[in-house]
């Protein structure tokens, strides 16, 4: 997914493409989400949609909607292009963000 876009990446274990974070630069829970991933040493890629050009933002939202059948809210985390988490709820992330299950 989203292969045509230029992503920011955070270093860590695994491939950044396994964890894709859609965020807003002003959002507190988006910062919590990034800290969660970084505290666990996980590589991920991210974009802050409010900082994108309107056409690029629209493309990403449309691709998300086509794949998952709903509009993204922030943060949204896409796991291995197959699964998504909406919002930052630590218990859900603990269940679903499992480094051992991510594609290498």
């Amino acid at each position: 997914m989203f292969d045509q876009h230029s992503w920011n990446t955070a270093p860590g274990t695994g491939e950044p493409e396994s964890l894709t974070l859609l965020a807003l630069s002003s959002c507190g829970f988006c910062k919590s989400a990034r800290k969660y991933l970084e505290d666990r040493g996980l590589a991920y890629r991210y974009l802050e949609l409010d900082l994108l050009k309107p056409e690029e933002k629209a493309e990403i939202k449309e691709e998300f909607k086509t794949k998952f059948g709903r509009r993204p809210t922030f943060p949204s985390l896409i796991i291995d292009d197959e699964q998504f988490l909406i919002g930052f709820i630590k218990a859900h992330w603990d269940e679903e963000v499992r480094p051992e299950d991510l594609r290498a």
Partner: protein
Amino acid sequence: MSSKTRDFVQKVAISRGWILQSDQAFLETLIAGLTQTKESYGYYLCPCREGWGIREKDRDIICPCEYAAADIEEFGHCYCALFQSKDYASSKKAPQSIPERRPDELFPD
């Protein structure tokens, strides 16, 4: 600018009987986020929602948003967790995302 934002959220909290986010680091990110949206759009757009950048279309999500009271009543804090109920603040629970109450059709395409 952030001191004006701090004053603004403190006044809102007092007038509505809400408590500001008690996690100080999280509160600072929200004040910074609100300051940023004010500078970008000219009004305090909710920092956790995507806006149109057009005041008329964003009216319901200008802080304090129209959904805050219902969210605080049901979940203990507003959508971005800037404002809390007294009970939630006393619980010392970490803030976490809550469901979006704003109708889908009001968001930008």
